[in-house]
C-alpha cells in the first residue's frame, strides 16, 4: 500500500452511456478513482448510481448497448478502455476477475462444477487435464468447500447458495488475478453465509495480495470490509476516502443521508417498551405445517411455533431462508391451512374458516409482499389497484370510493397524479407504498409484512419504515413483520420470534432477544450483521414512532 507502487487500477474521467433507441443515455459522468495493490475499495451506491456499470467497464463486460464514451481505465499500467474484446479476453480471468452478484444463476446449470472451474485454466491454456483437475480440487479446498473431489462431479443445483458462491470465488482466484471485482457478492445470501463469504474473500486477498473492487449497496458491508470507500450517486462520485474517515466525518450530504438511513445495530434505536396489559390481536399456538413431497413423504416446514401479538404492536418473525418464517405468516394471513396448532386473529379461529368466511376475514388481515414488482398487477392503474379491495366488499358509490382511494394514496405519501399510472411507471418505493395503500384501504386490524422493505434501497427503506411506524401510531395497526435483517427488526419490532429450521429457537421482547441471554443461534445471527465498524450512534436519528394507541 505504499504510494510509490503503481495502482492496480486507475480509472480516469470515465464516461459511460447506453444506447436507447436512437439516443444515448449517459449513466456515468466522469468518474475517477484508483485501486492500489492489496487494497479493498468499496464502490457504494443505490440502484442507478452507476456502480455496476463502472465495474462492468473495468472488466470489459458492458452490456451490448453500452459504451465507454471517454476516459481511461489503466489496469496494471495499461489503458484497456479502447481494447478490442479479443484483446480483453486475454486479461479477463487472468488479470482481472469477477465474483458475481447472483450465485444462483451464475453457474452454467448443465455443466459440472469441476468443468466450470477448470474452464478458466483451460482458456488461459496452461495445463493438461490431470494437472488441471488437481488444481481444481486445490482451489475448491482453498475456498473452503467440503469434499472437493465429490463436488467437481456435481452440478450447480446440487449445491447451496453459499457453496455456489464459493465455487465462483474459486473461479475468480484460479489464476491469481491482480484485481477481483466483487459485484454485490453476498446480497443474495443469508447473513451468516454472507459473513463467511466476506471473510473468505478477505482471507484470500490477504493470502494472494490481490486487490478487490467491492461493489455494494450495503454501507455496512463496505464499512466492515473496505480500506477505502467511494460513494456514487447518479453516475458521479459524491465522496471518496479512507473508510474510517468517511464514516467518521462524511463531507457530503448524500453520504450523511446514506449513513443515517442504513439500518444497523449500532445506529438503530429500539422503540420504547410497550406497556403491559394490551389485548391480544394475534395468537399462534403450536403451529405445525407439513408439505407433501412427491415421494409420498412429508416435509415439516414449521414445527411447533407459538407466539402472541398484542394489539397495536409489531411482532417480528426472524430467520434465514428455509427457517419457515414465510410459511408461518402465510398461515396467519389465511393463505395456507395449518397441519396442526391454532391461529387466532381477534376472536376468529383462522383454521376453521370456510371460503366465504375466509373472504370476510381478509378485511381484518392484510398481507404486504416483499417484491413490489410482482405483487401489483402490471395491467392495472394505481387507482384500480387500491380500489379493488373496496369493490370486493363495500358496495360504495363511485365518488365515495374514489375519495377513499385518494385519501389512502395521500396517506401513504403519494401524489394524486400517480393514480392514473400503471405500476411499471413507478419506482420501487412508490410501488411498495401502493401495495401498502391497497392493504390499508380496507382498514384491517392486522397487517402481515413479508420482508416488505428488503428489496428496496436503504434510503427508500428508511422512508417506508418510517411510514409504517406512522401508520401504526395513527391507525392502531398490529404488524406481523417478517425479516432476515435483525438491524431492521431491532428498529421496528416490539416482540420477536427467531426461527431456525422450522422451530422457534427464541421468543421474547426485542431487548431480550438482543441480550446475551438469547440462544447461541440468535447470537450467531446478531454477530453476523455487518456494520460493526459503524461509529456508534454517530448520526442522530429519531427513533421510529412508538407502538400504536389502543383504539
Amino acid at each position, binding site marked *: 500500500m505504499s504510494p510509490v507502487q503503481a495502482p492496480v487500477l486507475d480509472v480516469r474521467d470515465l464516461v459511460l452511456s*447506453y444506447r*436507447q*433507441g*436512437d439516443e444515448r*443515455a449517459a449513466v456515468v459522468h466522469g468518474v475517477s478513482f484508483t485501486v492500489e495493490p492489496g487494497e479493498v475499495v468499496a464502490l457504494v451506491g443505490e*440502484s*442507478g448510481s452507476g456502480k455496476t456499470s463502472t465495474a462492468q467497464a473495468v472488466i470489459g463486460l458492458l452490456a451490448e448497448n453500452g459504451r465507454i464514451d471517454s476516459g481511461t481505465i489503466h489496469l496494471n499500467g495499461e489503458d484497456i478502455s479502447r481494447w478490442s474484446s479479443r484483446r480483453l479476453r486475454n486479461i479477463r480471468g487472468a488479470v482481472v476477475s469477477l465474483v458475481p452478484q447472483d450465485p444462483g444463476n451464475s453457474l452454467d446449470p448443465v455443466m459440472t462444477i469441476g468443468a466450470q472451474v477448470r474452464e478458466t485454466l483451460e482458456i488461459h491454456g496452461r495445463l493438461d487435464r490431470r494437472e488441471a483437475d488437481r488444481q481444481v480440487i486445490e482451489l475448491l479446498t482453498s475456498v473452503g468447500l467440503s469434499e472437493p473431489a465429490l463436488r467437481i462431479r456435481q452440478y450447480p443445483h446440487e449445491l447451496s447458495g453459499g457453496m455456489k458462491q464459493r465455487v465462483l470465488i474459486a473461479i475468480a482466484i484460479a489464476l491469481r488475478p491482480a484485481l477481483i471485482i466483487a459485484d454485490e457478492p453476498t446480497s443474495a445470501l443469508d447473513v451468516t453465509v454472507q459473513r463467511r463469504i466476506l471473510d473468505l474473500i478477505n482471507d484470500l486477498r490477504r493470502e494472494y495480495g490481490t486487490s478487490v473492487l467491492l461493489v455494494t449497496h450495503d454501507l455496512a458491508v463496505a464499512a466492515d470490509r473496505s480500506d477505502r470507500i467511494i460513494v456514487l450517486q447518479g453516475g458521479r462520485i459524491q465522496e471518496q476516502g479512507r473508510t474510517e474517515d468517511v464514516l467518521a466525518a462524511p463531507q457530503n450530504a448524500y453520504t450523511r443521508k446514506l449513513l443515517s438511513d442504513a439500518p444497523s445495530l449500532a445506529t438503530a434505536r429500539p422503540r420504547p417498551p410497550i406497556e403491559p396489559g394490551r389485548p391480544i390481536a394475534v395468537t399462534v399456538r403450536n403451529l405445525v405445517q407439513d408439505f407433501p413431497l412427491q415421494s409420498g413423504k412429508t416435509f415439516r416446514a414449521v414445527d411447533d411455533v407459538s407466539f402472541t401479538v398484542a394489539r397495536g404492536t409489531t411482532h417480528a418473525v426472524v430467520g434465514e431462508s428455509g427457517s419457515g418464517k414465510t410459511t408461518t405468516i402465510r398461515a396467519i*394471513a389465511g*393463505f395456507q391451512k395449518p397441519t396442526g396448532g391454532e391461529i387466532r386473529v381477534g376472536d376468529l379461529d383462522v383454521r376453521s374458516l370456510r371460503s366465504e368466511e375466509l*373472504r*370476510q376475514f*381478509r*378485511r381484518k388481515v*392484510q*398481507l404486504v*409482499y416483499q*417484491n413490489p414488482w*410482482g*405483487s*401489483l*398487477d*402490471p*395491467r*392495472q392503474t394505481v387507482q384500480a389497484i387500491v380500489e*379493488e*379491495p373496496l369493490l*370486493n*366488499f363495500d358496495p360504495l358509490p363511485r365518488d365515495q370510493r374514489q375519495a377513499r382511494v385518494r385519501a389512502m394514496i395521500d396517506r401513504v405519501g403519494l401524489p394524486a397524479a400517480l393514480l392514473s399510472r400503471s405500476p*411499471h*411507471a413507478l*419506482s420501487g418505493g412508490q410501488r411498495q407504498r401502493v*401495495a401498502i395503500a*391497497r392493504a390499508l384501504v*380496507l382498514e384491517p386490524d392486522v397487517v402481515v409484512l413479508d420482508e416488505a422493505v428488503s428489496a428496496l434501497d436503504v434510503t427508500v427503506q428508511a422512508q417506508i419504515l418510517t411510514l409504517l411506524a406512522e401508520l401504526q401510531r395513527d391507525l392502531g395497526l398490529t404488524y406481523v413483520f417478517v425479516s432476515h435483517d435483525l438491524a431492521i427488526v431491532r428498529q421496528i419490532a416490539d416482540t420477536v420470534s427467531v426461527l431456525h429450521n422450522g422451530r422457534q429457537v427464541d421468543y421474547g421482547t426485542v431487548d431480550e432477544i438482543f441480550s446475551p441471554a438469547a440462544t447461541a443461534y440468535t447470537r450467531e445471527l446478531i454477530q453476523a450483521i455487518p456494520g460493526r465498524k459503524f461509529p456508534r450512534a454517530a448520526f442522530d436519528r429519531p427513533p421510529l414512532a412508538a407502538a400504536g394507541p389502543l383504539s
Partner: protein
Amino acid sequence: MTTTDSFLHVTDTTKQGETAGWLRVLAALRKLPLGLVLAWLVLTTVVLWAAMPWLFTAYDPLQGTPGGQLKAPSAAHLLGTDSLGRDLFARLVYGAVHSLSGAIAAVGVGLIVGSALGLVAGSARGRVDTVLMRLVDVLLAIPTLLLSLSIIILLGFGTLHAAIAVGATAIAGFARLMRSEVVRVRNAEFVEAAFGSGGTFARVLWRHILPNSLTSVIAYTAVQFGWAILQISTLGFLGYGAPPPTPEWGLLIAEGRNYLATAWWLTTVPGLVVVTVVLAANRISRSIGRSSP
C-alpha cells in the same frame, strides 16, 4: 431501469406543443421498425380488399371474358387472366374476404374452444386439469391434416367448414398455451394479493388472470392467423377447400398450378400474396409478444 427512462422520455415529448402533432406521429412512426410498418401496411391493404374490393379493381372476379383467357400480365390485366378469362388481380382482391374470414373463423374456433379449455384446466387444476390436458394430447396425437380432412368430409365442403376443420386442429395449441399462461399468472404474487384483497375466484379470474394471460395468447393468435391461411390453402390444394368458383387464395394457387407450364403467374402470384400476408401476421405477432410487460 430502461423502461422507466423511456417512459419519462415519452412523457417529456408529449408535453411539447400540439402544433407539431403530426410531425410527432411521423417521428413515432419513424421509430417503429420498418418491417412492422410494412406488416401493418400489408394487413391493412388486405383488409381493405376484403371490405371494399370494388375500390381496387373494376373486373368481376367470377365472370371472365371468354376468349381473353390465359393472358400474360399486362396493363389491362395487372396479373394476367386465368383459364376462363377472369382477371387474376380481381380474383385475388375479391378472394381476400374468403381467405381472411376463413382464417379468422378458424382462429376463432381454436381461440374460443382452446382458451376455454386451457382456462378451465389451468384454473381448476387437479383431476379436471389432467383429464382436459390428456384430451388435448389426444387431439395432438391425431395428425392434424388427417383430422381436418375427416372433419371436412363429415361437415361437407365450403369455406366455413374448412375453417372449422382447421380451427379444430388449432384447439390443442391454444389450450396448452392458455393453460401454461394461466398457471404462470396464477402463481404470480399479484393474483394471490387479489385473493388477499377479498376477491372471489371469478373476479380474480376476470380481473387479473385473464388479462395477464392474454398477451401471449393474442400474440399466438396472430401467428395462428397466418398458420390458418396456410392450412386453409393447403386444404384447397388437396381439393378440400372452398368450392369453385370462390376465388379463395388457396384455391387460386391450387387451380393455377395446372397451368404452370403455360401461365406461371396463375400460381406464383397468389402464392407470393399468401407468403406476404402470413409473414406480416407473424411480424405483428412478434411485436405483440415483445410489447408485453
